[in-house]
C-alpha cells in the first residue's frame, strides 16, 4: 500500500522487452485476461491477478481506470488459503486418536499417519477463508520503469512472474550497480565494474 495514500515503501524495476505498436489496446486486453479471479466460492488454494489500485473488488477496469497519463497503475492481488502447521498437527492427532479407538489398535501405522495428515490438511484448507494481500504498482511507459510498492521479496518474485505472464516483459530490479550502468558514461561504467570495496576508516 502507500501508492494512493499515506507513507509508501517502493523499489524500482526496469521493464525489458518489446511492446506492440498499439500499446493501450494490448494492455487493456492483457490486464483483463489476467485480472484477479475470486476463489471465495471455490476450494482453490490460491489465486493471483490484477485489480484496480483504488478498489480490490474492481476487476473490470471500466474506462481503462488503470491508465493515468503515460502510466499504468495496477494492484496485484493474491488470495491464499492458509492453515497453520499447529492446527493441522492438532486435528491430525485428534483423528489418529479417534481411529485408534474405533479400530481398537495401539497405534496407527506410518503410512496411515501420512494419509490422515494429508486428508486433514485438505479438509482444513477447504474450510479456510482466502486471505487477501494487495500490492500496488505504477508502470512508466515512457521510460520503461516500474515502481512496486512493497519491499517483500516473495511479493516481488510473484510480481515478476505475473508481469511476464501478462505482458511478456521482464522486470529487472534497479539495484545500485544496474543504476550505475545506466547513469554513468560508458567509460565510467566500465571502471565501476572493476572497483572493489574500500575501507572508510
Amino acid at each position, binding site marked *: 500500500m*502507500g*501508492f*494512493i495514500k499515506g*507513507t*509508501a*515503501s*517502493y*523499489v*524500482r524495476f526496469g521493464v525489458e522487452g518489446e511492446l506492440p505498436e498499439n500499446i493501450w489496446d494490448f494492455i487493456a486486453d492483457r490486464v483483463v485476461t489476467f485480472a484477479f479471479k475470486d476463489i471465495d466460492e471455490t476450494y482453490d488454494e490460491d489465486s493471483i491477478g490484477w485489480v484496480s*489500485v*483504488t478498489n480490490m473488488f474492481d476487476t473490470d477496469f471500466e*474506462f481503462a*481506470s488503470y491508465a*493515468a*497519463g503515460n*502510466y499504468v*497503475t495496477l494492484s496485484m492481488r493474491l488470495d491464499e488459503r492458509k492453515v497453520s502447521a499447529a492446527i493441522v498437527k492438532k486435528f491430525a492427532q485428534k483423528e489418529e486418536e479417534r481411529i485408534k479407538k474405533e479400530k481398537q489398535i495401539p497405534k496407527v501405522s506410518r503410512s496411515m499417519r501420512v494419509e490422515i495428515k494429508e486428508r486433514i490438511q485438505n479438509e482444513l484448507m477447504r474450510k479456510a477463508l482466502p486471505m487477501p494481500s494487495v500490492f500496488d504498482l*505504477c508502470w*512508466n511507459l515512457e521510460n520503461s520503469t516500474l*515502481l512496486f510498492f512493497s*519491499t517483500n521479496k516473495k511479493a516481488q518474485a510473484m510480481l515478476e512472474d505475473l508481469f511476464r505472464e501478462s505482458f511478456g516483459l521482464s522486470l*529487472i*530490479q*534497479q*539495484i*545500485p*550497480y*544496474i*543504476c*550505475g550502468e545506466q*547513469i*554513468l558514461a560508458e567509460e*565510467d561504467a566500465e*571502471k*565501476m565494474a572493476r*572497483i572493489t*570495496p*574500500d*575501507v*572508510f*576508516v
Partner: protein
Amino acid sequence: MDLVDLIAEKRFLGQEFLTWLWWKSEERGGVVALPEEGDIVVVFEKHMLLEYGEGDSNESLICRGLQTELQEARTGLVMGKKLEQARIQLAFNDYEWNFTMAAALMEFRNVKLPKTGGESGNDNDPEEREGMVLERIYLFEELIRIVLGLYRQFLEVRVSDGWRDELLRVREWVNKAERA
C-alpha cells in the same frame, strides 16, 4: 553475472554511497550541491542501521536518536561497519521528503511525500483522482531522480583519480568520531 550474484557482490556500492552521502551532507551543514540542480538539503536523522560481515556472520547495529546523537553510528563506522539504512530528510525546490534508504538494494522505505495542495480532492471524480495519482507519481519519481543525481555524483568521484583524496577526507571525518 546473474542478478543474485550481482546483488551479493556489489552491495557495497549502495552502502558506500550512503556513507559518502552522510559525510557529504555534514561537510556543508546538511546541504549537498548537485550540478545543474542546485543545493539539496540532505539531513540524516533519527534512525540508522549499520552492517558488519556477510551471510551467517552478519551483524547489525541499530542507532536511534536525533541528529546530534548519531555519534554511536559514527563509532560503528570506525569499527568497520557499513551504513545499510538511514532515515533521511531531503528538501529541494520547496518540496520535502522523509524516507529511509536501504542502501544495498536501493529501496525507498516509509517515504513521506511533500505536502501539496492537491490532497483534499474528491476521490469519486475520476479526473481529480487521476490528477492526484499523477501528482503522487511525480513526487515518487522526483525523489528517485534526485537520489540518482546524488548517486551519480558519488560514482563519478568513486571511479575517478580524485577518489583517493575524497576517501582521505571521509576517513578523517569518520575517525573524528573516535576522538570525539
